[in-house]
């Protein structure tokens, strides 16, 4: 089930299905044979779940990828185990005067009591001289000056151990800790949680098992995802508006958008960030099997109101190319506050789409000097404005209407964009020009078949 960039969301799926199965069995209570069957089925289901050693239900914490951070509102308690010691940290609350940390050998004991360490003023504690290989459980309680208890922190367990990391040329061997996921390992060793697929693919595992060594490729072992047999290509989806009521050419129905995301999930597409894609373009990185990039153009309010929650739910990263004149211009457009909030979400990355969305090709009646000035202004000013309003330095550009010429691409390169995007249909191998990247528009009238037909992720016709 778990194959996307982010983790945490889909982990709930099997549980939910199981619960449904058990509830269904309740109906058979009246007739004997059915009851027995249902009981057998329930037992079977119950017994099967722990029988998969590759799927531990790890309590997920803040490090669980792009997604996790935005959603967790609960008080956080994290542990970091090392050789004979455990570092416990938790989210600080301003009203708290002192914390009491409880620890115990079992989960139950820690929940109800355990050994108390009182009078902690900082939101961290280092528990030393522990027995390696043994599990320790922690719980925290905050108290205000008046002695009123504050905060509900979960009970978290961890195991001190001589966790090992060995470096070899080209890769690294790591003993995963109990709470580790591919995303946390990728964040720690590859400096990017969105690269979790690289570890998963190289080890050919579906999940991380604590204390079973995992190999982490330190650099791309297949740059450009090019082999003698063929090469991976990345389709980039370009959405504009999304509507709850009516579809039009440039506006996809919300239910349809959801269906399309579900299609990606069901068919094991892996949505990657634009940055990963550009690394791949520059032959510095590779992409996972069946990689897709999702982009939105213009900056409509629906991106924030409809697309963002769906993307969060699926854990899919996306990019919003915003043209700055649209922002704050009306009811249907995003406000700057929303742009900032989108950028902060960590799910959607905000990038440039010029200032006024004019066609960047030379228009009739335009003189060369005026045209050139307009181009520079379009490409530079929007970037400056975006920087001043959100603090974000954008590095990618989408041409309005996908229109460009040599001067436009040369200027995009000169101004310092790393890549620029057209709306020519197609899937990108690494060897497309950085300033003429193909993107497939998703139209409101497209059915799922049309949508699926654009998702070509492998090709071999140039090397074969």
């Amino acid at each position: 089930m778990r194959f996307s960039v982010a983790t945490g969301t889909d982990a709930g799926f099997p549980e939910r299905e199981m619960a449904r199965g058990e509830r269904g069995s309740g109906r058979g209570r009246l007739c004997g044979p059915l009851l027995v069957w249902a009981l057998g089925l329930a037992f079977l289901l119950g017994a099967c779940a722990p029988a998969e050693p590759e799927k531990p239900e790890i309590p997920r914490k803040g490090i669980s990828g792009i997604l996790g951070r935005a959603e967790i509102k609960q008080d956080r308690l994290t542990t970091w185990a090392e050789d004979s010691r455990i570092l416990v940290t938790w989210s600080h609350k301003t009203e708290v005067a002192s914390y009491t940390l409880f620890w115990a050998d079992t989960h139950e004991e820690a929940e109800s009591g355990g050994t108390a360490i009182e009078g902690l003023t900082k939101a961290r504690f280092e528990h030393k001289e522990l027995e390696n290989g043994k599990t320790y459980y922690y719980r925290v309680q905050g108290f205000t000056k008046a002695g009123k208890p504050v905060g509900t922190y979960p009970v978290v367990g961890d195991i001190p151990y001589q966790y090992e990391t060995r470096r070899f040329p080209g890769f690294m061997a790591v003993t995963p800790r109990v709470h580790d996921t591919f995303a946390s390992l990728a964040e720690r060793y590859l400096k990017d949680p969105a690269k979790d697929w690289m570890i998963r693919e190289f080890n050919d595992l579906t999940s991380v098992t604590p204390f079973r060594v995992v190999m982490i490729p330190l650099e791309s072992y297949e740059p450009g995802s090019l082999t003698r047999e063929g090469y991976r290509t990345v389709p980039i989806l370009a959405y504009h508006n999304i509507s709850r009521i009516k579809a039009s050419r440039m506006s996809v129905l919300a239910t349809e958008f959801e269906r399309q995301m579900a299609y990606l999930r069901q068919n094991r597409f892996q949505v990657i960030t634009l940055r990963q894609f550009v690394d791949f373009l520059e032959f510095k990185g590779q992409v996972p099997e069946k990689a897709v990039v999702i982009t939105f153009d213009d900056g409509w309010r629906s991106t924030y109101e409809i697309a963002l929650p769906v993307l969060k739910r699926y854990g899919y990263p996306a990019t919003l190319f915003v043209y700055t004149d649209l922002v704050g211009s009306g009811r249907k457009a995003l406000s700057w506050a929303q742009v900032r909030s989108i950028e902060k979400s960590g799910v959607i990355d905000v990038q440039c789409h010029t200032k006024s969305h004019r066609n960047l090709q030379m228009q009739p009646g335009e003189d060369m000097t005026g045209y050139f000035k307009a181009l520079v202004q379009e490409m530079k000013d929007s970037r400056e404005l975006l920087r001043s309003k959100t603090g974000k330095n954008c590095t990618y550009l989408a041409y309005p209407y996908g229109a460009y010429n040599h001067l436009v691409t040369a200027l995009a390169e000169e101004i310092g964009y790393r890549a620029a995007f057209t709306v020519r249909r197609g899937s990108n191998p690494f060897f497309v020009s950085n300033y003429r990247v193909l993107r497939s528009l998703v139209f409101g009238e497209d059915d799922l078949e049309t949508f699926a037909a654009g998702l070509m992720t492998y090709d071999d016709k140039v090397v074969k």
Partner: protein
Amino acid sequence: MSSCTRNSRAVRYWKGCGPLGPWVKRWVLGFQTIVLVGAMLFLAVLFLAVGAPAPAGASSHTKGQKLGSLRVTIPKDTSQGVVQRFRRLARGDDKKRLWQRALLRWKVVAAYAPKDKEAANRIEAIETWQEKQAAKHLAIASAHLKKKNYGQAFKSFLRTLAYDGKNHMALSMVKFDLNARSLQAYRVVKGDSPVRIAKKAYNDADLVFLVQYFNNLKRNARLTPGTTLNIPVMADVLVSRPAQVAVAKSKRTPPRAPRATAQAATPPRAPSPPAQAATPPRAPSPPAGAKSESTPPVAAAGTTQAATPPRAPSPPAVAKAQPVPKEPSVTPAATPAATPPPQEPPPAPTIVPSESTLVAALEAGAGAGSALGDLASSSGESEYSSSEAEIGVRHAQRLYEDGQFADAAAQAESVLEDDPTNTKAKNLVNSSYYALGQEQVEKGDKLAAIQAFSRAEENYKDSAARKTSLAGDLQDQQAEVHYIAGVTFYLAEDLDNAIREWEEVVRLDPAHLQAPKDLANARALKAKLAQVQ
């Protein structure tokens, strides 16, 4: 019921007779009971299986610990199973011929099992295989470049990259030189100013702001000859300026009508203002499988290894008109010269073998048995003693005399790379490229000629002037290139782009034979399609 009476009590119960019979039959031997017992048995087996910690080497594990809903077991050896798993994966990669990942996975095996013979053998085998194949495909690529099969060359460079991901040359070929680029390099010559460059490159001094902007220069900036500037390709932008471009064109291409004769002319023309940046023609179809738009490659501007082979087809008619022996061995006698090379090498023979400079450079690298990447960075090797330089120059001189100008240039350049002050080598480079340019002119390949002339120093003979006039001629070919691009799009059922290309053809050459017809056709088809939809 007769059976109930005859048999023993047990059998009677079994058959459902007697007072307890029906109960036994329904509950003990009934369907439900069998299922229940079966399920319990199944569960028992399952719990046994789950209770045992791991599939492999259960004995080596300590007892599992419960951590929330997670059962954690700490194996005695955390890296257990790594070797087996990665051996299995690596073998799979070997089978699928995914060499790069196979190599890294075998390296994992070797790291955890240093004495493993299979891993060591496979690593060595894959590494030598990759090296060999990369060299082979690089050679093929260079051969295709030589024949100007740019599509095939692209393919071979891609294959090279598949075997050797660190080959900078193949990468820059695939990503830049044989790909669409919008910035071209311009090497400054004596007397250049931003205004003059704009005049040369765009035939329009008013476009000086482009030169200024892209190089951060003032209008009257002083430029050092030999430095390289980046200027944007303006072909398609200028085309969309009908009035101005007409003027520009008439200025630029005076010898339009007698095209063939102009090309056949071997003696250099009267020197016109020297120009470097030629506006290259648009290529017919991209080598990339994707139908990306055709765009001009950068005109070569004398950067060392990044010579830019343009992707435009040479006009076949002209090529036929000038039969040239292909093999170097057919070269007619060249005047042998004294061993120390003179300042002015002998004039080039009129009929000479054809080779692109780049190809020569490539082959020089491959022939020396060097790994592919070395070519681009060969200067990083050991110091070149003066005697070695001497040998190199002599070798280059001999090649020059044999009429193998491309090889000679490459050889001399490699000497220069290690000893930039070597005037003999410099002279040889110049004269070789000049001769090569002449040879390409005779063959009718103007792009190659322009390239060759631009590799020679600007003030060497009249190379710059010849380049300018050739560039002018090339402008005319552009229409043809657009036409072919249009056909490609048309065949790929991309009507919009086909129409766009053909419109450009008509704009460039209103007297084109095919384009107006095809354009009308395509438009009609498009209208029909729109109707149907």
